[in-house]
């Protein structure tokens, strides 16, 4: 089975071309996210991460390619599988690990956990564990952006499976009717938990969903970080200029199972193989080497640096104290 790559997308006139520095930043960011998730996985097996966790290895190009487009004052909403965009957005890795470890120094004081990394000061408005639950909230942030009139946008990340639930429909419809500056970024990794998209959706190209709302839409190769950047930058430019929402479908694949207890046996090995061959980091590394922006050695050095940095952050997080059970929960619940 061939890995699904998207149809060539429309010209992106208004988009700022990437500089060589941007390209190296994108590469490094994908590596950072990969190493963060690998470290989460390792920590989980060590018992440092509790309950469950949902990893995004294989989908880094979406987080990195969109993350570079957002402004400091934009609003970003996402899901339990949102570690990638949090890191891309500059969430402190140690605070993120500490949250996953349930420690006092966690970005949410250890109260939220792996599914709920939130950092409102960075515009990371929340990770929603209820499928589709975050979309209406991002629509609200989009109303804020529109009312503020400063060219802000609201972006919301979700999976293919989320397009089957009512909240998705209501959010898409309201955003289109109100012409809100909202980017609906769908990471189509072909599976909702253990069930392949063809069992739950009338088709696999979710860009078709947008037709039901006459919403601007684009489908991109979610493993091609520059394609993701271009599509997102164009949509963001349109939204900031009052052009309304865009549905962006990123065709991608998760390398791991749905959550840490899932061996993902339900996937066709050929499909897995085809997608692993299109690892977004390997693809981009090759592209940058071809462009002479990178050498194998430099790439390995970057990987080593990021791995070491994530390892160190994780170790510092693991050394942090547990929250005090005597902490004032009233204050956490009520202002």
């Amino acid at each position: 089975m061939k890995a699904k790559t998207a149809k060539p997308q429309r010209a992106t006139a208004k988009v700022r071309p990437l500089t060589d520095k941007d390209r190296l930043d994108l590469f490094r960011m994908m590596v950072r996210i990969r190493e963060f998730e690998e470290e989460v996985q390792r920590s989980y097996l060590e018992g440092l991460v509790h309950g469950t966790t949902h990893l995004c290895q294989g989908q880094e190009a979406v987080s990195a390619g969109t993350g570079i487009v957002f402004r400091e004052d934009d609003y970003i909403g996402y899901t339990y599988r949102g570690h990638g965009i949090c890191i891309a957005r500059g969430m402190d890795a140690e605070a993120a690990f500490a949250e996953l470890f349930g420690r006092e120094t966690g970005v949410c004081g250890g109260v939220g956990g792996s599914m709920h990394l939130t950092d409102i000061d960075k515009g990371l408005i929340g990770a929603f564990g209820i499928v589709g639950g975050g979309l209406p909230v991002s629509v609200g942030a989009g109303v804020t952006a529109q009312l503020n009139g400063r060219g802000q946008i609201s972006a919301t990340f979700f999976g293919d499976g989320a397009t089957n639930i009512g909240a998705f429909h209501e959010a898409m419809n309201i955003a289109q009717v109100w012409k809100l500056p909202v980017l609906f970024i769908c990471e189509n990794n072909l599976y909702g938990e253990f069930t392949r998209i063809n069992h739950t959706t009338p088709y696999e190209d979710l860009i078709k969903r947008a037709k039901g709302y006459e919403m601007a839409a684009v489908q991109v190769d979610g493993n091609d970080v520059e394609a993701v950047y271009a599509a997102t930058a164009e949509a963001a430019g349109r939204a900031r200029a009052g052009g309304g929402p865009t549905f962006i479908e990123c065709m991608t694949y998760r390398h791991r199972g749905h959550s840490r207890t899932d061996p993902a046996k339900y996937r066709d090995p050929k499909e897995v193989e085809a997608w692993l061959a299109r690892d977004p980091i390997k693809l981009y590394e090759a592209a940058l080497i071809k462009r002479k922006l990178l050498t194998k050695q430099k790439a390995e050095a970057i990987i080593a640096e990021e791995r070491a940095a994530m390892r160190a952050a994780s170790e510092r997080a693991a050394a942090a104290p547990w929250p005090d059970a005597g902490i004032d929960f009233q204050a956490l619940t009520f202002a």
Partner: protein
Amino acid sequence: MQEITYREAILAALQEEMRRDDKILIMGEDIGPSGGPFKTCQGLYEEFGPARVRDTPIAETGFVGAALGLAITGYRPIAEIMFADFLGVCFDQIVNSIAKHRFMSGGKVKAPLVIRAIGGAGLRFGAQHSQTGESWLLSVPGLTIVCPSSPNEAYGMLRAAIRADNPVIVFEHKALLSTKGPVDIGGPIPPLTGPRVLRPGSDATVVASLAMVGRALEAAELLAKDGIEAEVIDIRSLRPMDTGPIAESVRKTNILVTVEEQAQIGGWGGEVAAQVTESAFDYLDAPPARVTLPDYPVPYSPPLEDAAIPSPERIAATVKSLV
């Protein structure tokens, strides 16, 4: 004090607050140019415009969720749920997102939003349009739940709710909309939560909410004729629930009767009874009694609906059976 209706009181609170703070906006179905099916938003659209008075599609999950998004990004949204019965449609957004977002963020996110839900029986609207909804959210930590029983409470509590920095659910009652009462327009903001004694009495304590408050007061009149002085307390807020003043009253009257427009199982009456039993155990001359709706949905046929809703006579009879 001005004599106005419950409906006008809601509108006055909305107008006043929206004039005071332009971060406040309201969303709901048909609340724009048409002023709302129950006319609680009459004129808001004309005064504040489409950006702050937003007609929404029929999508409670969508616009109630949007209220949270607005709240955590600097606005103070109000969402109107046309019939409290429709809270079921956006229940997930309320219990899993709105009630928990601040907590899950480690307390860093503020969610100042208000959900107004107009509910209640007595108007022959049938099973799906006659519920107060009070109990559906009773067990959800993170929510403040209030139930204005009069024009003055509707005015005061709504203003207080809008100024609160946390999610507040305001249950209004459609049978009260046209009732008149004195309202302290422009007066001080009352406490958002906590019960209020409406009629002093020494023989029994009767606690009620929403439309049942008026019926409890009528019952007190009936009882007075028989020389029984009932102390009538408006519970006002269900979350947080402060039964201190109720227990205090019971220490005096030694009798507790709760009256609510919902089925008994899962109603707030059980919580009040349990808390008061805990704090005033030795003062109770009889087990607390609860007057509620029967354990089936609200029927449409007038005689059936009338028989289902606690009447002053039923309340009075219950009190009598205890004193």
